[in-house]
Every structure is written in structure tokens, then in C-alpha cells.
């Protein structure tokens, strides 16, 4: 059975989101104000925005070599602004006392994690293409 790239991007983004949030919970990096925000974050930010929006719309037609800076750029800019909205107004999640890559201040953690959002569409597109390849062989 073969699957289309848009669907593969959304499934891959869901997997990336679940792995990220599980890792964050295991290492106690941040915590959500309510479980609803966790679900919204995974479904909206990972699946819809980074997976379908960035991954498929931008990364769906070109070779990774040419498109990877744009994927990282859009993912990181969306991520930084999203982290900024949470940091200054939304407060849907908060940081634990544990440092992230040696960073301890709340706003610096938002910046680091915001930039790291750039990896989400990259990982999504690579994983989605692997899934497509595997589904074509099956």
C-alpha cells in the first residue's frame, strides 16, 4: 500500500511530536498547564503547521539539498514566535529548573527551543520520504 506525501508528512510530524514531548517529559524539561495544551501543541503545531504547512507545502516538491535552509528557516521562525507568544502572553507551558543545553533563564530556553523547532520540518520531511519509499517497496 502506498501513501501520499501530505499524509506521510502529517504522520511523520505526529511521530516527531510524540517523541519530542515524551523526551521532554522523561527529562523533565517543561510542563503544560493542562493536558489539553499538550494535545493542541502536538496536533496544531507539529501535525498541522510543521508537518502539513511547512513540511508538505515547502518540502513536498524539491530535493532536500536545495530546500533544507527554507524548511529550517520557516520552522525556526514559526517556533521562535510561538515560544515568544507563550513566554510573554499565553503561559500554556512553563520550564522546569533543569537547564537545556546549559541554558537556565526562561527567555533563553524559549529562544533555544524556538530555534530547535527548525529541526521539526526537516525531520518530518526526511521521515515522510522514508515512509513513502518503504510503502512503495511494500
Amino acid at each position, binding site marked *: 500500500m502506498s501513501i501520499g506525501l501530505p499524509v506521510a508528512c502529517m504522520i511523520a510530524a505526529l511521530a516527531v511530536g510524540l517523541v519530542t514531548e515524551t523526551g521532554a517529559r522523561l527529562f523533565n524539561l517543561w510542563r503544560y498547564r493542562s493536558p489539553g495544551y499538550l494535545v493542541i501543541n502536538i496536533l496544531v503545531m507539529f501535525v498541522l503547521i510543521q508537518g502539513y504547512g511547512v513540511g508538505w507545502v515547502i518540502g513536498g516538491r524539491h530535493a532536500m539539498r536545495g530546500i533544507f535552509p527554507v524548511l529550517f528557516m520557516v520552522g525556526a521562525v514559526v517556533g*521562535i514566535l510561538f515560544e515568544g507568544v507563550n513566554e510573554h502572553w499565553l503561559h500554556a507551558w512553563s520550564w522546569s529548573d533543569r537547564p537545556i543545553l546549559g541554558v537556565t533563564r526562561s527567555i533563553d530556553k524559549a529562544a533555544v527551543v524556538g530555534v530547535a523547532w527548525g529541526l521539526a520540518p526537516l525531520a518530518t520531511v526526511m521521515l515522510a520520504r522514508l515512509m513513502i519509499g518503504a510503502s512503495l517497496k511494500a
Partner: protein
Amino acid sequence: MNPTPHLSAADRAHAIVLAVGSMLVCAYWVAFFRTDLTLPKVVHNMTNPSVAHLATVYLGFESAFPLADLLVAVTSALAALYLVGRDAKAVLFGLVASGALGFLAFIDISFNLLHGFYAPHNLLKDGGLQLEALINIACVTGAIWSIWRLWSHPLRRAEDRPSMVGKSELGFDTAPR
């Protein structure tokens, strides 16, 4: 914990410009890879060999920009994040973003002038080139304004807020006296 100082209307406007600017850089590259909106007419005329050569040079030149624009977009967004938080790193990231933006804009302007893209007869009848000229002007103006504003900003001489106060890793006492 110290309360976050009040954000002035000018800083709020500056943060919006930085945030919107970073999104516009992203939007440009999405349009570049998805549509013909940003491309000059010369790129569509590949039948004439001399024009085809120029189009190949143009596309090769433009394709080198995304990685450099990544630096501009990410540092602009970081500057907006820190400026809203009234943090001194806003000046650092804002100056890096503005300097890089101005540098890239002048490279683009230089290329377009040297290859005749900005000759009046080309510019007047080509929507793609007009958009590019508009972007170049906006980038140079925005970069100069942002550098001027950040260099005279009170945060330029400010320390990072709370967690930087105290003993540094080298043992120097950085606490205010």
C-alpha cells in the same frame, strides 16, 4: 524575580517590524519555490541562448541566498522575542540581523545593477523586478533604521536580567555594586 520593565510603544513597533520581517523573509522563499511571483520575466524566456545564460546565472545566484537569509530570519525573530522581554540580547540579535540584512541587500542590488536588471526599460515592465527593487529598498531602509535604533537603545548598556547576576564561571563577581 525582577518584574519585566514596561515595553514602550516604539519598542513594541520595533518588535512587530522584526517579527513581521522574519515572516516576510520566509514568505519570500515559500513564494520563490512555489510560484513565479518573485521571478523576473527573463527567467521565463529560455529560447534565446544569451537570455537563457543570464537566467541560469540569476537562478544560481538567488539559490545561494536561503542559507544566508536563514541567519537574518532567525536572528530577527530572536531579536523580537528578546525585545518584548526587555532583554539585552535583543540588541545583539537585532544588530546581527540588521547587519546581515543590509549586507545581503547590497549584494543583491550590486548583482541587479551589474547585470542590467535595474535598467529603467527592464524595471518598468517587469513585476518580478519591481518586487525585488521594493524588497531591496525595504531591506536597506529597515536595516539602517534598526541599527540606528538599537545602537541608541538603553538595553545596549544593560546587563542580562536576573540569572546572569552573581559569580561568573571564571569566578569574577558580576553582581551590581
